[in-house]
């Protein structure tokens, strides 16, 4: 048995030591580039980014000035900046997040608009995203960390990102996450279980639609070009809409988007969406298609997209 004094001093010293170690590692490795003091040439844009897309992109965006952004979920995220740069686009930034939600995309717009002089915004809205019951917002956490250095430097999450960067550089490459099954099994899993999760609790997002209208009005006011983009999904997934009796909602969704802004729509039966070769799973197109999509968006050509010009803008009451 030790004395109370010894208990207090020893244990508080140990806890202080742990926190100091945590701080030091996080400060030196700095996985999300908060201070940018040390440069160990880590693969942060792969390791840190994949660990938390939101924090990575918010932190990254805060240090850059961009005029052209794309928003949405992983489908938007797959339209990589390099594809745009190859076509001569400057000042582009991709703010799409894997597993992103509509409320996150809407908040991301306002963050981007608050910190940058925007000229063009592409808002990716697949049908699965356009769903009020899917309203998780992890962006708030990332914003919170951005605003409070304590939360960044003293966090076990940051430490695990630091550790992965160090491991990747000095011990062995950190493998990127891949589905623990073959393409066919993963395809079925996405088409059944995941789709069931999205569509069985589907709620038409009237509230979010109002928020999109607000964005559209803001863009019109500020002279920002605002376009919706509906990414292609495989026809297997397109046919699931009817299985869940959501055909009316699906049709309404496209009509409503078109009332707010111009829409570039890739999600209908065509030669691209009919072929499994163009997709890694029913939701996600592959790199080849991503490049074609970017070409259509940037060059305003129509290889396999449809266009819907804005019909009318309902006043916001």
């Amino acid at each position, binding site marked *: *048995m*030790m*004395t*109370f*004094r*010894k*208990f*207090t001093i*020893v*244990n*508080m010293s*140990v*806890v202080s030591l*742990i*926190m100091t170690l*945590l701080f030091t590692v996080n400060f030196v490795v700095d996985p999300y580039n908060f201070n940018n003091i040390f440069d160990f040439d880590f693969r942060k844009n792969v390791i840190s980014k994949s660990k938390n897309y939101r924090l990575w992109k918010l932190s990254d965006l805060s240090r850059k000035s961009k005029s052209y952004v794309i928003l949405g979920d992983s489908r938007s995220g797959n339209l990589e900046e390099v594809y745009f740069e190859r076509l001569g686009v400057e000042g582009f930034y991709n703010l799409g997040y894997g597993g992103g939600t509509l409320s996150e995309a809407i908040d991301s717009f306002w963050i981007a608009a608050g910190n940058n002089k925007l000229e063009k915004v592409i808002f990716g809205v697949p049908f699965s995203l356009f769903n*009020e*019951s899917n*309203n*998780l917002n992890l962006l708030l*956490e990332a914003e*919170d*960390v951005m605003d*409070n250095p*304590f*939360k960044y430097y*003293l*966090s*076990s*999450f940051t*430490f695990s990102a630091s550790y992965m960067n160090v491991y990747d550089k000095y011990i062995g490459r950190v493998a990127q996450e891949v589905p623990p099954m073959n393409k066919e099994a993963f395809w079925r899993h996405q088409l*059944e*279980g995941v789709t*069931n*999760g999205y569509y*069985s*609790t589907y*709620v038409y997002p009237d509230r979010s639609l109002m928020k999109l209208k607000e964005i559209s009005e803001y863009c019109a006011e500020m002279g920002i070009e605002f376009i919706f983009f509906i990414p292609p999904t495989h026809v297997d997934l397109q046919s699931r809409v009817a299985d869940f009796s959501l055909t009316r909602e699906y049709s309404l969704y496209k009509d409503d988007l078109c009332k707010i802004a111009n829409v570039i729509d890739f999600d209908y039966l065509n030669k691209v969406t009919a072929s499994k070769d163009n997709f890694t799973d029913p939701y996600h197109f592959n790199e080849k298609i991503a490049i074609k999509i970017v070409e259509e968006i940037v060059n305003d050509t129509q290889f396999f997209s449809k266009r819907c010009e804005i019909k009318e803008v309902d006043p916001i009451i």
Partner: protein
Amino acid sequence: MLFNSHIFIFIFLPIAFFLYFYLNKIRLVRVSKLWMVFASLFFYSWWNIYYLPLILASISINYFVARKMIEHKNSQFEWLSKTLLLKIGLAFNIGLLVYFKYMDFFITNTNELIGSQLGLLHLALPLAISFFTLQQIAFLVDSNEGLVKKINLLDYSIFVTFFPQLIAGPIVHHKEMMPQFADAKNKLINYENVSKGLFIFSIGLFKKVVIADTFAVWATTGFDSAESLNLFAAWATSLSYTFQLYFDFSGYTDMAIGLALLFNIRLPINFNSPYKATGMIDFWKRWHITLTNFITTYIYTPILRSFNVLTFNKAMIATLITFLISGLWHGASWMFVIFGGLNGLGIIINHYWKKKAKLKLNKYLGWFITFNYVNITFVFFRAREVDDALKVLSSMFSLSNVVLPSFLASRIEIANVKFGGLVTSIHGDGYTPIWLVLGFVFVLGLKNSIERLELFRPNVAHSIFFVFILGYTLSSMNNISEFLYFQF
């Protein structure tokens, strides 16, 4: 400033602690008290500086009225009877509470009742107003009854503002606090209290950051966002909130008790394993104990005294009225009144059972009924509107919305049964059922914090436990969420 924020733990608390004891060490006792009041008011003002004049005014006026009652015979206010002084003090406190907390509620109900068009005031609820007002009402009543012999502004200010218990209790009584602040032994650092204080603070922090905030995601989504809930999701929602509320509020109380112990002040316990209760009477002896004591002394007893002849039935009426008031104290909403009413009803049924049925209920059955009744009353406590409460309750007791896990879809087929994620609608995952089971294990199978504190010894086992939970929790504080009871 929240107890579970970095700024509080790493900056405010060390400065408050070391300067307080340093000033005492160099025998600047009055300055150390002034420092404590200043630190507490700074802590209070961190949220909103505009609340500061209100608490200062409340302290000043209550102090003035209490002093006039204590020194009544020698006072220039002798022409005012003590009872009248008390009434003035009570009117001020209740008026303050009504104006800031209930005015819009009254206006809304008046408009609905008589069709008037009175405009709402939209006043922001000042932080902790319910707690510091209750504490001061008790002080005035005791001053009137001659239970307070002397008073000075500095001691009174510490009693009201002492930061560990200022925001959400425990509700303290002057007779248990004032002597502790006056005791010379408490002016020096006491390592037994410091180690115990840090120990229980760490447990409280763990309860809040690791347990309560985990349940909060599912409870918040289930109540506020999910449009519909299946049977399992509805139970997961209500149980998540029941666990969240306990771990959040008892975690806060543990932190308050621990922080006060650092300054050699012992705060009363507020929770004694309430979810182990085997009846509603038992539950309210274990849940928010200081509030129960307050309403018993200052509301229930006066109501009983107001009856000329006291009967069992009249006592039950007094119980119901007390719980309705207690419900309304939690917030300006009919949902809290329903919550209070249901709890009052539960207590009455419990009393009738004990008195009339003369049947001893099996303790496991008693626990089962009590826990589920409490769980249902908390649905009303949490829901913002009746529709939200009914959404959760109807889904909890409806067999028409049963959902089975997706992986069973290809194996079995049952009419009217859907397949899908059991808890996806509340942002749950495979860990949700595990956490719910753990919730039961924590509240039923483990010793509570106060029991742990009593067993605390400065040994290796406690060192490992302390370092682990404090280190783990401090590094998990990414997401700072407010304590539930701050809103009251």
